[in-house]
């Protein structure tokens, strides 16, 4: 009996009506978290004693990098769910979250480069973390490209699910191979971990910002999923009724 909720997830209609009331609160809370975290971090947190004000980009960089990875784990899990249970919602979730993950990886890369210029003196180094985020970005782009290449929805679902699962298996290998490669070639890596330990005034806004990012993205994903459901189920009667009664 406890698994009923899981099976219900397979129904787009059930999901649509369940998630409808979640989007606005999630987006609202996420926006509040983002605004509070970013304003606090960018304007009020104390400056770093080594990096001065440059460190403040951490309040965007770290949440984006965390989300880029979390989104990929969610993507891989959804791919697995689709391959095993053929659940209808899994490919909708994949389609909704893949571009968001790609944007997050891109934000992490760009903010990292902007941060790297004043602190390391270079826009880019082939550091382990940078390289693995770059690979992650390429994986996302591959999934998006594959999904949009097929006309047949079923085939697109299956194909992306396969790539997501293979990517999930390979992600740790890629990550650790890059770490190993990097440490083999250059002894001292520029690592974020070498930064002095943060004080509470610095990491509290970071925490708020991370939570805000997660909530905002969750709301955004649900929103995107709902419009995808409406599009995919546009022939069914409940969608017609929903659109006629309440509009888009």
């Amino acid at each position: 009996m406890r698994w009923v909720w899981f099976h219900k997830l397979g129904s787009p209609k059930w999901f649509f009506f369940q998630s409808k009331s979640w989007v606005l609160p999630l987006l609202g809370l996420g926006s509040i978290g983002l605004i509070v975290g970013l304003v606090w971090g960018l304007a009020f947190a104390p400056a770093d004693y080594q990096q001065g004000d440059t460190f403040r980009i951490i309040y965007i960089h770290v949440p984006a990098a965390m989300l880029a990875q979390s989104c990929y784990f969610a993507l891989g899990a959804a791919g697995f769910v689709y391959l095993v249970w053929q659940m209808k919602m899994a490919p909708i979730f994949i389609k909704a979250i893949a571009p968001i993950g790609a944007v997050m990886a891109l934000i992490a890369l760009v903010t990292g480069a902007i941060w790297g210029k004043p602190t390391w003196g270079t826009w880019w180094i082939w550091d382990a973390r940078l390289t693995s985020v770059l690979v992650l970005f390429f994986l996302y782009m591959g999934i998006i490209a594959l999904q949009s290449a097929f006309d047949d929805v079923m085939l697109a679902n299956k194909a992306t699910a396969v790539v997501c699962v293979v990517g999930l298996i390979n992600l740790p290998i890629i990550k650790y191979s890059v770490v190993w490669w990097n440490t083999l070639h250059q002894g001292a890596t520029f690592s974020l971990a070498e930064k002095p330990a943060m004080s509470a005034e610095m990491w509290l806004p970071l925490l708020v910002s991370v939570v805000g990012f997660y909530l905002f993205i969750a709301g955004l994903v649900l929103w995107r999923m709902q419009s995808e459901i409406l599009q995919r189920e546009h022939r069914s009667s409940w969608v017609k009724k929903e659109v006629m009664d309440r509009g888009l």
Partner: protein
Amino acid sequence: MTYSSFLQSEFLILWRRKQDVLNALLFFILVVALFPIGVDPSPAFLAPAAGGIIWCAAVLSILMAIEGAFKEDYLDGSLEQLVTSGLSLPLLMLLKVLALWGCVVVPLLLIMPLLSEMLFLPSTVFWVLILTLLLGSPSLFFIGLIGSALTVSLRQGSMLMMLLILPFYFPVIIFATSAVHAAQAGLSYSGSLAMLLAMSLLSLVVSPVMTAIAVKASVN
């Protein structure tokens, strides 16, 4: 159809269409030739870079060879026959990789002495390079075949397939070239070789199943 007749026919097809394998080999040599021409022809640059150059060229040419692996089968309907044959599809995919690997990698290894001489690779390192190719290339084929099966129904699938598959090749290239570099520096390289073998074995487990799923989806 039996497993052995399938393997036989795969080998026969590859033999009759040997121009494809030859093209991949020529492509491999051309990519290798780009580096001395485009970057620096002196032994001082080429000798340390040789392992990386050969591996990058090998990855590209193997991708070229795998890319069309299912195309003919898909167009003439024999892929459907495989799905409905009652034989285990993952096992058939495994045999297909075996045939393809044998027909592409063996010629690649045969021209390797020539190329390593052209790139001034020290003879002590040569055997390490051969070992990395032997241990690492199966995983390239296994992973590549998934991509090939996924994109077989698309008209412009080859570019997409490369885009999808190349990121998965990064770890293999990293471990292979670090084994060659370690051998050149006189360090122990057995760890990298073990990692290559581990990746090949992992993809041996995962890939035939995934390829079978992809083939079934593409045929429908």
